[in-house]
């Protein structure tokens, strides 16, 4: 049995076609609010149930409860505040407003509450720091002074260059059922796969029916791999090295917060909504810089006996010259001098200079794909 949606029911906030047409024909009658890309993505995720049980952006009760207790006010585990900020109040509580992204009306929102908040408190509680060098903190400090809570209804999908690979929870749930998978492990990634990733994924797959690779697409930092490179690299890896009846690839659009342990829980909740029963939690999951301990996220999972998805803690892998394969610290008895750690930075450099990485670092087929792009990295 795949996981039950978080909170019990899969949320779907899509309006019927006739209602949609009516709302759009009356759009001039609604107050308009422009929202940024990250919030538009959140909105889509709410509408399609990726963020179940949220039906909209958090009201103050839920917001404060998430900050203080990592739970919604009804006690459901929830660690990342999904909030809509505005710079000025151009509408009132009780209004229905239209949310626009790039002049496209994407949703109607029923404004339940407009409230103020303490940005520093937000940053410190979610990111455990108020250091502006942390990208999540910098974003919070740059948010508008008001938060708007209330339920949403999706009117238009955002333009999506990767629609072919974008599956919604309702679709992955049917897919898993059709494939006969009862236990599914999800893997979150923002990178092209190297042998370390493959080792972790296959180690996890050993214990379940299916592997669900779920790359996060969306706005990236300079130097990150481009979305199309990640997809092509995984397509190639699947073609040559993955069992077709036990692994699948689908993407999700999501804006990373880099909130480390708290975000690891959030990532697990998202995958639970897709139907996954297990979730791979890596070393320094969703971290940035050295703000979080390498295995801090593992500890936080212990505080959520009611999460409804089982974390799989798989240690960092490396190549051992003596073992002659990928191993981890728990299973390899040999000295560090035999160990070769796969460094993402080193791989990037090799890709940039066209130097073929050794096969224990990256599959040659994957390297060929990455190299075929004129520039595989975000500039």
């Amino acid at each position, binding site marked *: *049995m*795949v996981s*039950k*949606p978080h909170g*019990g*029911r*899969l949320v779907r906030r899509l309006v019927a076609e006739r209602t949609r047409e009516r709302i759009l024909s009356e759009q001039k009658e609604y107050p308009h609010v422009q929202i940024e890309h990250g919030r538009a993505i959140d909105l889509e995720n709410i509408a399609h149930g990726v963020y179940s049980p949220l039906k909209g952006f958090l009201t103050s009760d839920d917001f*404060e*409860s998430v*900050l*203080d*207790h990592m739970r919604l006010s009804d*006690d459901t585990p929830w660690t990342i505040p999904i909030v809509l900020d505005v710079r000025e109040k151009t509408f009132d509580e009780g209004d229905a407003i239209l949310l626009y992204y790039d002049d496209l009306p994407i949703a109607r929102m029923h404004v339940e509450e407009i409230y103020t908040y*303490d940005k520093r408190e937000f940053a410190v509680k979610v990111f455990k720091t108020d250091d502006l060098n942390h990208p999540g903190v910098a974003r919070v400090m740059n948010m508008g002074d008001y938060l708007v809570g209330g339920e949403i209804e999706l009117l238009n999908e955002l333009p999506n260059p990767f629609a*072919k690979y974008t*599956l919604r929870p*309702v*679709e992955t*749930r*049917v*897919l898993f059922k*059709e494939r006969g998978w009862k236990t599914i492990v999800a893997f979150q990634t923002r990178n092209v796969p190297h042998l370390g990733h493959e080792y972790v994924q296959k180690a996890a797959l050993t214990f379940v029916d299916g592997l669900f690779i779920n790359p996060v697409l969306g706005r990236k930092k300079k130097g990150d791999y481009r979305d199309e490179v990640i997809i092509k690299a995984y397509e190639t890896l699947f073609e040559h090295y993955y069992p077709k009846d036990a692994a*699948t690839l*689908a993407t999700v659009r999501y804006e990373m917060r880099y909130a480390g342990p708290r975000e690891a829980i959030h990532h697990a909740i998202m995958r639970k909504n897709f139907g996954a029963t297990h979730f791979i939690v890596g070393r320094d999951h969703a971290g940035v810089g050295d703000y979080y301990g390498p295995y801090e996220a593992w500890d936080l999972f*212990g505080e959520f*006996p*009611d*999460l*409804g998805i089982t974390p799989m803690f798989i240690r960092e892998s490396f190549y051992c010259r003596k073992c002659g394969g990928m191993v981890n610290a728990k299973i390899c008895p040999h000295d560090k001098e035999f160990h070769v750690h796969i460094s993402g930075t080193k791989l990037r450099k090799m890709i940039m200079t066209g130097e073929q990485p050794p096969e224990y670092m990256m599959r040659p087929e994957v390297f060929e794909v990455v190299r075929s792009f004129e520039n595989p990295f975000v500039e």
Partner: protein
Amino acid sequence: MAEEKKYTTVSIPKPLYDKIKVRIEGTGFTSVSDYVTYVLREVLASLEEEEKEEVFTEEEEEKVKERLRALGYLD
């Protein structure tokens, strides 16, 4: 500023309380209340897991399957 989350009081037998108090020594739990909350959340979650799974209508499911076939996810 956030209003403190509301708590309520439940009664448990004193011997049980004492047993829990001993049991949580040296663990991460700082109070009997924390431990009881943890255990109750665990129990409730496992009961909810056993409840009937949400099902889609046949029509909805067929529509989804069509899209999955079109995208190459299903044969």
